[in-house]
């Protein structure tokens, strides 16, 4: 287990460094941030002076070495646009994204698992087929369109829910969160649903496949012979056995939900990290882009690791194998 962990760590560090290099030079090649940020009224002398202040007058390899030097001391630079440390800036946007991803995850499980299990149970009947056909929409409709449609139905037409933005927040452990305030929660429902739709379809399909397979197993036949109710068989015995692939996939998807909820956050003007990323890309705010993507890699590494741990808790066989090795 320790060897495995160490190897994982070494790989992760390599990925982190590779990401840093690729993103740094990639963003450098797009253009010069000063061209975008400075007022058009600025005189040529001021433009030069600003370039010098940010260090853009140096050759790129010097800029990169400086960046690496600072990064090794834990300083990923200051945002060109906001003048704040990039990491601090990202972290200030993070709670909004995390709570949205969490609610999205809850929605996708709450919608996907029951539908999938039911579809697996009724695999050959019209109910099962209808659910599977429906899930195709979940996969194929673009996030942007779904978001707009939800706004038009629930905010513009029915006026049940607010259209965009973040509602009231309450302070929990020093973080401002919407999820604990009823007003804030209203603002979260539509974006969380938009985020959840694709995941829910994925979960539906996984749960259906798992259920179909599990229903043919001996333990299900035995349980039926014992006279246990179908509901209990499905939602206790079968469910336990199909959760492993679902958790694996959701774990990976949670990463993308946190890091790349860009479209949803933009449509709903949700002040999360994805929106920060998009804004930073349009203004070539290199420290924020680099820090953001490095953070993303970190999130994926942590989630993968957590998924491995959860496996061992859910499936005794993995635990036994791990101990044997």
């Amino acid at each position, binding site marked *: 287990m320790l060897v495995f962990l160490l190897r994982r760590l070494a790989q992760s560090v390599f990925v982190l460094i590779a990401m840093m290099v690729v993103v740094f030079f990639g963003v450098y090649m*797009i*253009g*010069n*941030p*000063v*061209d*975008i*940020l*400075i*007022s*058009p*009224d*600025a*005189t*040529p*002398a*001021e*433009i*030069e002076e*600003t370039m010098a202040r*940010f260090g853009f007058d140096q050759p790129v390899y010097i800029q990169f070495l400086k960046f690496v030097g600072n990064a090794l001391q834990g300083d990923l630079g*200051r945002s*060109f*646009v*906001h*003048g*704040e440390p990039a990491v601090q*800036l990202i972290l*200030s*946007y993070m709670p*909004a994204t995390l709570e949205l991803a969490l609610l999205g995850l809850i929605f996708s499980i709450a919608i996907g698992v029951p539908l999938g299990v039911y579809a697996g149970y009724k695999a050959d009947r019209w109910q099962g087929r209808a659910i599977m056909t429906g899930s195709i929409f979940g996969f194929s409709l673009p996030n*942007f*369109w779904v*978001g*707009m*449609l939800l*706004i*038009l139905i629930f*905010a*513009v*037409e029915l*006026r049940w829910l*607010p*259209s*965009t*933005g*973040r509602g009231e927040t309450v302070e929990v452990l020093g973080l401002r969160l919407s999820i604990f305030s009823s007003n804030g929660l209203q603002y979260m429902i539509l974006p969380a649903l938009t985020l959840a739709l694709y995941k829910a379809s994925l979960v539906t399909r996984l749960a259906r496949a798992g259920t179909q397979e599990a229903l043919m197993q001996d333990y299900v036949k035995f349980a039926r012979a014992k006279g246990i109710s179908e509901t209990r068989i499905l939602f206790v015995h079968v469910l336990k056995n199909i959760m492993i692939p679902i958790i694996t996939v959701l774990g990976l998807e949670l990463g993308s939900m946190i890091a790349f909820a860009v479209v949803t956050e*933009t*449509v*709903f*003007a949700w*002040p*999360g990290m994805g*929106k*920060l990323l998009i*804004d930073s*890309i*349009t*203004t*070539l705010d290199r420290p924020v882009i680099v820090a953001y993507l490095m953070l993303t890699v970190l999130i994926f590494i942590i989630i993968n690791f957590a998924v491995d741990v959860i496996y061992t808790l859910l499936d005794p066989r993995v635990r036994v194998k791990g101990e044997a090795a």
Partner: protein
Amino acid sequence: MSSPVFRGLVVAALATAIPALPLAAQELRIGLASEPSSADPHFHNLGPNNQLRRAIFESLVGTDAAQQLTPLLAESWAPISDTSWQFNLRKDVSFSDGSPFDAYDVVYTVCRIPGVPDSPSLFTTYTGGITGLEVPDPHTLIVHSAEPYPLMPTEFSTFGIISARANGVDGSALTFSAEGCGDMAVPATQAFNDGSAAIGTGPFLLDSFRRGEGISLVRNPGYWGEAAHWERVTMLPLTSEGPRVAALIAGDVDFVENPPLQDLERLNADPGLRVVQGISNRVIYIHLDHKQAPSPMITGTDGANPLQDIRVREALTIAVNRDAIVERIMGGVAVSAGELLPPGMFGAHVEGDLPPRGFDADRARALLAEAGYPNGFGITIGTPNDRYINDAQVAQAVAQMWARIGVETQIDASTASTFFSRRNAFEFSAYLAGWGAGTGEMSSPLRALLATRNSDLGLGGTNRGQYSNPAMDAVLLEALRTVDDTARENLLRQASRMAMDDYAIIPLHYEVTPWAMRASIDYEPRADQYTLPYMIHPAN
């Protein structure tokens, strides 16, 4: 964010919109098209920041909807010698912390401006010309410059005044020098964002500034001028245009900036909503490469640069049917341009005096043949595709019009961040861009776009076509030294006409800025495109 599907949806939604709900008492919610990067008035010289600044921190000189100067913290001003201006300040003004406003606060502000750490765009652009500040009495300020500086009052309209006392500085002990004012305590940018240093004289106080989430303002109870109508103003950054319009229709906001052109008709048809629009100070133009030969994106000329021939420039200018672009591409929400600043603004010609060049394809072909290009040549127009209203489509239309006179034209459209870097590296032979005259008068576009590039004089900063006309430069420099308004305006008109007669640049149209709101409120459109919450008022 403007897919056809989405547009369709918005239109469908608009068609069935429920009449707007009545306004909550004295609370105004605004959907912003772009977000300020900071609440610090001196951190970033950028439209959204300057717009927010005006609600909280006032400047000595104000500007009205047509960008004419009006008294604000200064009651009056006048030149007292060739190189100095006197500003007489209001005596009844206090900052929101209760400290009185006086001329030392202005000195303190000018001292702070060059030293804002990490600023991406300093306000030194406007304070750089100041060589000395004198305070004969606390409500009189004398500003010295090295040379005659007619734009001094205009430049004093661009930055907000912060309080010396509130930051623990005795302003009267400061001595201003262009090299720096010595050690003095200055608030950090962060202190403005968290509200602790956001102490101004404006009609509103900053209640909270939350990035991505919104800005909340409350009415300043001690404001010296006419109190704003709104007790509380919330500004939400709704940067994608579709959701912004949807939020207005859904009643989540009362007022939005820049509703997309394709929705205007529908918004207008809704009795619960109101759309106002007005001409802006921004001209959309095509700049031509006057210098490089061979020019990077011209083909079929054996290395010559045909754009150096005035006949070719004239041909390209009159080959463009501006009215068609305004009608078809801009949906009528733009005005054809004959120079770089719309009529009615300082230094622009009176309406009809320098009209947009007429469309004449036959004459354009004849001119090309005369210049030795009977079969035309090939050229590529560079354009951003996400910076100005319908920018890439406008460039596409120009390309087709040029193709009709035999100039085979391609479009090279890219996102703004890439486009501006490439343009600044002189990669284009012709490019489409826009210029908003920040100062609201003709010297702004002439100095930036057409004056011969000269770093020492601060000229030609955005002249990426490298146009150079010494005769026009001389008139422009003369204007920049002329303090008398009438004489200066005449000189600016003369310089503009010289450039237009030389077909130095191809002006296309002036952008028109729309705003949409509840029918129960109203707003006077502004040439500077700002949304100023204290100018939004209930409809009569």
